[in-house]
């Protein structure tokens, strides 16, 4: 899971300058009152800054500064290890990415293919599960817990387990074999260029869907029961209730789920790193994995930074488009 950070600066107006010395009059009393509130506000501002400072410093040191450094490095030939000085090379890295790096092209395609499947399927499946566990029946909490267990399991552990399950003689194929009475033989899912990405999509959805189920569930529970009662009075069936009450009321939840899944899906890395290392034959390499590989294991930090910058711009554009499409139209 990737998290996103928003730096919201609390707007603190600069405190007014000291008022000129005043004589006794109702006006001065008012002014003194204003001064007092001004002082209070100043103290509040100071306290606010003091409280926000640790987080802001950490974000600056570990997020903002590295990001800016990364942008700067993208235009150089910087190496992780090199006795030679770093040179400014302009757009060379970007040209290299779009012309002579076949893996970059594959990474781009795979990243988008992954997101294009995961975003609608995981969001839809999450909503479906949320509707299921939103019933008032006994034992529903147990189901919520079961669906949520994969989310709190480390993705590395999940990936290793699924890697074993996907083997030619693994659990998945044994299951297929027994269900179809041997009519359909599975393949070694992760070693086949045609099935590897699909296999990773399935495991990723399974792992993360519980989290979005919870988000949907919290959205469902904010919908007032009176609306459903009124709908039932008007003779609405289950489907009509969902269409005319549930769906419109979930608007803000929908936007949140859509954007978080998109960002998480585009940042696919751990599953690839653990399970396939981009293979077989580049069929599962992703932008983040490729950037880490060239930037870190091949020591080409400049080029890796350029790939990260491309990735950043792509995510930014997609997020802005989504914001635009889901904006409040009133």
């Amino acid at each position, binding site marked *: 899971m990737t998290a996103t950070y928003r730096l919201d*600066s609390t*707007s*603190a*107006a*600069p405190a007014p300058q000291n008022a000129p010395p005043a004589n006794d009059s109702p006006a001065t009393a008012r002014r003194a009152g204003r001064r007092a509130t001004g002082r209070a506000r100043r103290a509040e*501002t100071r306290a606010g*800054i003091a409280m*926000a*400072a640790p987080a*802001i*410093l950490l974000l*600056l*040191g570990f997020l*903002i*500064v590295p990001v800016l450094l990364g942008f700067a490095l993208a235009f150089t*030939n910087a*190496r*992780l*290890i*090199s*006795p*030679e000085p770093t040179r400014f090379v302009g757009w060379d890295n970007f040209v290299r990415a779009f012309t*002579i790096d*076949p893996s970059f092209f594959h990474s781009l395609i795979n990243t988008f293919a992954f997101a294009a499947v995961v975003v609608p399927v995981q969001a839809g499946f999450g909503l479906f599960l949320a509707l299921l566990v939103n019933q008032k029946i006994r034992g529903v909490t147990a189901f919520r817990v079961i669906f949520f267990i994969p989310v709190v399991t480390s993705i590395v552990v999940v990936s290793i387990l699924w890697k*074993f399950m996907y*083997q*030619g*003689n693994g659990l998945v194929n044994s299951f297929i074999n027994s269900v179809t009475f041997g009519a359909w033989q599975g393949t*070694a899912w992760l*070693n*086949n*260029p045609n099935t590897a990405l699909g296999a990773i999509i399935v495991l990723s959805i399974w792992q993360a869907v519980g989290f979005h189920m919870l988000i949907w569930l919290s959205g469902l529970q904010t919908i007032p029961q009176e609306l459903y009662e009124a709908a039932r009075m008007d003779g609405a069936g289950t489907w009509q209730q969902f269409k005319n009450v549930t769906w419109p009321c979930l608007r803000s939840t929908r936007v949140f789920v859509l954007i978080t899944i998109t960002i998480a899906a585009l940042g696919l890395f751990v599953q690839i790193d653990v399970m396939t*290392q*981009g*293979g*077989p*034959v*580049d069929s599962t390499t992703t932008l983040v994995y490729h950037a880490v*590989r060239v930037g870190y*294991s*091949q*020591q*080409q930090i400049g080029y890796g930074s350029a790939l990260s910058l491309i990735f950043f711009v792509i995510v930014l554009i997609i997020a802005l488009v989504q914001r635009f499409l889901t904006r409040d139209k009133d």
Partner: protein
Amino acid sequence: MRQSLSIIAAAGLLASVSLTGCAKASHDGSASGGGPVQITMWTHSAGNPGELAVYKKIITDFNASQSKYQVVQQNFPQGSYNDAITSAAAAHKLPCLMDMDGPIMPNWAWAGYLQPLNLPSSLIDGLLPTAVGRYKGEVYSAGYWDAAMAIFARKSVLTEAGVRVPTVDQPWTLDEFNAVNAKLKAAGYDTPLDLGAADKGEWWSYAYSPMLASAGGDEIDRTAMKSADGKLNGPDAVRFFTWFQQAFKKGWTNNNGPVGNQNFIDNKVALSYTGVWNAQDALQKVGSDLLVLPPVDFGHGAKIGGASWQWGISTACGTQQSEGARAYLQYSFQDKYLTDFADSQVVIPSTSTAAAASKYFGPNGSLHQFAELSQKFALARPATPGYPVISTTFEKAAKDIMNGADVKSTLDTAVQAIDSDISSNNNYGS
């Protein structure tokens, strides 16, 4: 608002600058009060109690043997060790003594992390050739041991299948090896051979580039170290990688894992291409039925990977401390310590006298054939600063080929990646 934000921004920058530590730590600290000079030492051995115990013993003995220097040890887990070194170098905080995986040494020497070792030649000449790291004619690193690989098999299984047991003088030829795999598959082994293909990382270059060299190819043209063209994508390399791909296609081997030697222990595979580090366990489980066979001769003589972890002295070391570091290294290369390492880690001692004293690698030791394999067949990986890129590129190409990619075009792409990296680094100063 703008004012307070800019203050915060400035403070943040200041903090991050002090976090990254632009102040260069002085490493020439002769200790205060005229005590012994402190010599910092980093190992990659965290989590390996056997190895650490020997280091602790050497350091304690050395510190007690004289009063001029004091070695101070810090341990890192192997997985993040190289990252720690790289970060420390960027922050000018390298330790004096550091160990390193053999093939990474030229990269670090070229980057200016290491100074020439300058140990007496009598000491260096007595070590296994693959336990000494040379770059541009200078010795930069030396190790207490080397590892070796072999093919593990069961005598009973080979006898039953009517297979000739190969010897060091007469390893299996490729044709023989193909016939052996076919026979063993027919004998009921689902996959007769475990090549360790489930593993990842440096293992690929370590395990399979010697096979490529044995077939007449290589990861790079070693004469000039400027291009891989004709070596990694020449006809010999294409022949080898076609065989490699076929071995998976025909079901002789697979990459299911588990990593290690468990499949052989469980008799799920008949042949296991693995290292000396798994030998002790195999001996216990398989007993006298265990055969340790030489690697396959792909046409240009059998080869196995050489060069394991070695020690070097960093450039961050002051003159006085460098002398101390040298004194320590010289002291540490005593046979008794090398034997201790060998017997606790099951690795091959780098001097013949230490090997003679070892319970595993002595003339009557149960694993002495590994020492023989290492002396006869060991081939170091290319000693060039470009090695990290060569290794990762080799791994990717070999994995793609294993998964059915077109052999020739995959190798051509790999050559292009390696060559463009070398030229973009001005041939790594060669």
